[in-house]
């Protein structure tokens, strides 16, 4: 494959970032926005082309005679050499999941670029302050995210991992004059930074034992005769595991070092993908502009954790303990987030928790995937869900953005009954809700069902648990839907225009994404993506009984939501009064933020930093100052020696001379 297009895919957004960042203020808003969107459009085309080439060209570097998809290193360039073996190379790695991610990222990103042209201006058409900056940051984000998914080695992943974190920071804090946005961006960065610490240590451990950063050398075996081409291979992963077990210290604190490494890397994923207990940044991240939430905090960046686990999946298979941890963390997070989502008032928060919950689905799906069950269906399901979720969640967020744009508030209490005023938004939002609820034939149905099937293969507890969560998902989404669009008639506050649908730049992405959500379920995903590149017809693994059950659960949940929220009625408050404690805990998100506040503020800040700073100023510095003070004190104390009296001088003289002699004599004796 030619190098030009992959290079352009990375270079264009970087260039757009620098160009818009440095010169954006000199150009008009419209020009900057158009340029940014056009740039993104180009990347979109290039990425689609690349993905198409990868999946369908049938070139020998992409697919072998047995129809197995291969991994292809398009290029790599040494960026920083640590040692002989440990080299960071910047490169472009094509395999099923990176090709899929290219599509996802560029699609959503382009939609968001387009959408923002309409969103980032007020009703009079005046662009927001910093519009150019917004596009520059979007380009930076796209660059980082693309770099992340095509990384051929784990260190490049880490590099771009940090960069997406930074662009997320910049975008969450886009409204930097708002203190809440500032603190939300800070929180997001620091929480993910903390997680990245684990990731970094994990990389260090893995690379020390494994002796390489390259994914191809960690999880795949090279294909004979084709440079840069490799195929996922459990043998290689076993070889890596052997390097761990053969070392002098294969076990650390009761777990194998490989498990430690993988869990530490997963810690990084937990941070980025907002798994409990590192999820707290994501709801706050909704302070950013809504397109940003759609792009970064729903569709792309937050699934980076899932993506990374998928990338290292053969290694995780070596240590099922690590996979179990992933399953448990995912399952707990999914349930927790669904609970919380049921009571939130802010529509973006509901969507945020729903995102957390859905990403947890993907994590669980990876955690339960085993090659021996349905050919690793969980892996494919996870990726499939990643794909469909990206589409419908972006749709939901963009829809929410349209609502917020129209109403000027995030709160559903300010909305109600908007279905007549904003039909396009209404219908697309409904499609999104149906997709996420898992109603046939929308895309979510297929992907979620496969996740549940693979859970069933793992254990029936996991299956039941996740089915419950799936039901809750349908419930809270429709609660949201009804509260926004139904409940009661909309009341426009005095002096405001009645809400209306958005300009085409905003509608087009909604419609497009809604369309995708309708049909994406029929993509033969198993043919394209599987853990070892071996294609299979996933419908063959489709468990209709599972599907029927989950469909029933979803429908029941929707019915319940309809009953409770379609029309204004006292049922919700009755429910709330029936379980006040549960409601309060859910409403306050189980007090995770307060707990973190307590740990960071009271413990780290007040009990570590402050005392340390005090210690530094008073003890360490005090000691240094004490040298000076003591010297001065001594100087003052021996002042009487120089009394000005000759006789005293002579007396000291004599004592000195005698002492000199006497002490020497004593020493000699």
């Amino acid at each position: 494959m030619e190098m030009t297009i992959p290079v352009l895919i990375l270079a264009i957004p970087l260039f757009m970032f620098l160009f818009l960042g440095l010169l954006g203020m000199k150009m008009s808003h419209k020009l900057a926005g158009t340029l940014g969107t056009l740039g993104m459009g180009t990347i979109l085309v290039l990425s689609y082309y690349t993905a198409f080439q990868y999946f369908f060209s049938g070139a020998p570097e992409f697919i072998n005679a047995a129809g197995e998809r291969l991994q292809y290193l398009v290029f790599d360039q040494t960026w920083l050499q640590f040692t002989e073996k440990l080299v960071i190379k910047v490169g472009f790695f094509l395999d099923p999941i990176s090709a899929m991610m290219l599509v996802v990222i560029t699609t959503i990103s382009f939609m968001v670029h387009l959408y923002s042209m309409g969103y980032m201006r007020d009703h009079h058409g005046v662009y927001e302050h910093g519009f150019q900056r917004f596009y520059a940051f979007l380009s930076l984000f796209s660059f980082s995210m693309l770099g992340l998914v095509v990384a051929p080695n784990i260190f490049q992943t880490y590099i771009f991992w940090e960069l997406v974190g930074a662009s997320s920071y910049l975008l969450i804090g886009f409204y930097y004059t708002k203190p809440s946005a500032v603190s939300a961006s800070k929180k997001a960065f620091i929480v993910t930074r903390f997680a990245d610490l684990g990731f970094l240590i994990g990389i260090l451990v893995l690379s020390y034992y494994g002796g390489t950063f390259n994914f191809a050398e960690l999880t795949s075996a090279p294909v004979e005769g084709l440079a840069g081409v490799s195929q996922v291979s459990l043998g290689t992963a076993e070889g890596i595991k052997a390097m761990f077990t053969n070392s002098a210290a294969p076990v650390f604190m009761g777990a194998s070092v490989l498990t430690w490494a993988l869990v530490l890397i997963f810690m990084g994923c937990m941070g980025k993908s907002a798994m409990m207990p590192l999820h707290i940044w994501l709801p706050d991240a909704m302070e950013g502009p809504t397109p940003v939430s759609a792009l970064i905090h729903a569709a792309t960046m937050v699934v980076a954790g899932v993506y990374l686990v998928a990338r290292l999946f053969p290694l995780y298979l070596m240590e099922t303990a690590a996979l179990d941890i992933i399953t448990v963390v995912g399952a707990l997070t999914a349930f927790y987030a669904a609970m919380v989502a049921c009571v939130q008032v802010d529509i973006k928060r509901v969507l945020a928790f729903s995102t957390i919950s859905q990403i947890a689905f993907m994590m669980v799906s990876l955690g339960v995937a085993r090659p021996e069950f349905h050919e690793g269906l969980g892996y494919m399901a996870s990726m499939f869900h990643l794909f469909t979720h990206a589409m419908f969640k972006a749709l939901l967020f963009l829809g929410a953005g349209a609502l917020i744009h129209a109403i000027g508030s995030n709160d559903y209490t300010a909305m109600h009954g908007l279905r007549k005023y904003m039909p396009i938004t209404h219908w697309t939002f409904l499609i999104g809700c149906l997709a996420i609820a898992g109603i046939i034939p929308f895309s979510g149905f297929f992907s979620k069902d496969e996740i549940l099937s693979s859970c069933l293969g793992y254990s029936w507890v996991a299956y039941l648990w996740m089915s419950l969560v799936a039901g809750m998902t349908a419930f809270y989404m429709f609660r949201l839907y009804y509260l926004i669009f139904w409940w009661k008639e909309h009341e426009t506050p005095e002096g405001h225009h009645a809400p209306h649908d958005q300009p085409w730049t905003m509608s087009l992405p909604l419609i497009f994404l809604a369309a995708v959500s309708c049909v994406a379920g029929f993509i033969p995903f198993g043919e394209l993506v599987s853990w070892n590149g071996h294609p299979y017809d996933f419908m063959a693994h489709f468990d209709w009984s599972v599907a029927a059950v989950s469909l029933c659960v979803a429908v029941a949940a929707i019915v319940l939501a309809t009953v409770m929220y379609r029309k204004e009625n006292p049922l919700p408050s009755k429910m709330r009064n029936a379980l006040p404690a549960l409601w309060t805990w859910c409403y306050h998100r189980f007090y995770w933020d307060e707990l973190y506040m307590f740990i960071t503020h009271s413990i780290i800040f007040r009990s570590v930093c402050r005392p340390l700073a005090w210690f530094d100023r008073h003890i360490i510095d005090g000691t240094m100052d004490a040298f000076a003070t003591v010297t001065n004190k001594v100087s003052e104390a021996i002042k009487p020696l120089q009394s000005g009296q000759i006789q005293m001088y002579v007396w000291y003289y004599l004592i000195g001379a005698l002492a000199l002699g006497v002490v020497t004599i004593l020493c000699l004796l």
Partner: protein
Amino acid sequence: MDYSQFLAMKQEIALLVVFLLVFLYDTFMPKSTQKALPAFSIILMLLATAAGFCSHCLGSDTTVVAFAGMYETSAVIAAIKGILNIGVVIVLLQSIKWANGESMLMRRGEFYELLLVTLFGMYLMISARHFLVFIIGLESASLPLAAMVALDKNRYESHEAAVKYILTAVFSSAVFMMGLSFVYGLTGSLYFENIYFALTNQLNMLLVIAIAFVISGIGFKLSLVPFHLWTADVYQGAPTSVTSYLSVISKGAAAFAFLVILAQVFGPVYSKVWEWMLYALIILTITVGNLFAIRQRNMKRFLAFSSVSQAGYIMLGVIAMNAMGMAAMMYYILVYIFSNLAAFGVIGAIENATGKVSMDDYRGLYKTNPRLSVAMMLAMFSLAGIPPFAGFFSKFFIFTGAINQGSVAIYVLVLIALINTIISLYYYLLVVKAMFISEEECVIGWFRSSFSERLGLWITVGGILLLGLVSCVYSSLLNLAEVSPMNMYFMS
């Protein structure tokens, strides 16, 4: 008697000639020409110094022992005398304005005559190889100084300083001579050489006491702690020119004489007796000198304590007991002469112009008298041992020389000395701070110092800048030291 022996005393004789000419000029020339006396004596001293250097260059200052071994001269000794001569020339140059001032009208000549006599005494101290000659040198180096200290008749402090000086000096020489009498009793001779050989297999309590007394006697001249207590008062009370003379020339001569006596007389008991005494004295001297210097506000008193602590550093060259140490010590003395005289030059210039000697009066001096301040700053930096000024090199070499001795104890000693440099840096910086950083209005207005003062400062500042960077000074001193007859005594 072989009168040709006197030829060995070329430098002493030259000095005597200078003395006589100055004396004759002072006595017999008409009053109108008296103002030229300072210039006259400076020219004569310059000639004497130049003659010394010429004889060095002609290679005629080989080692000569004259007067039945009572007197010795060698290239090193000629060099140290030359160094002292240079110092004296600068002192004289800086004192012209003061000497030609109102108060000195009647006593101008006395200053020069007394000064030359003390210098002669110092020559004898350095060259003596017999204690009688030494004591004559010592006394003629110290007694006239008392008169010089008292020269400023109108200031009470001057008298008080003189009394303090003469009484303590006589006391110390009594103790010194007591020690000598013990040595004489133990060894039966006052020749250095004889005592040296007599001591090679002798060690008793009396000897230790005797050595302690002898050290205290010379320590007094060098102002080693605890024999230093006169220093500050006398430096403060004496006229500034006398103080500067006292602080550099007298100290330099005593330091060298000390080395001679310790090496050539008490060498055999070095490691047993006086090495440890010197350790104690050095530590005490440097530390106490520094501690006192911190609090001083009077510039002269401040420099007195600074010179006390500098004496401790000079002693590091003695304790090394090797050629490197000796060379480093001589180099240190030379650099110290230049640095300290630069400081005294500034103090003298300011005192002559305004009568102010307090550090508080120096605040903001840079704004009114930038050149003087820069000269003072360079002097302070040099004294503190900051590169690229000469003081850095002299400190570095004296430490290098000391460590050449090789024992672990010397490392500890040098470490203590080095830590003390921090304290000394502190108080030297206080002066710099007062002049440069203080934002107050300066009480000393702008003034133009006299030509001689400026010339003196230029010379000293030039020395501070060049003595270190130009390596031949130290190198030639070390070369001299390595071939000096003293090496024989270092070997032990």
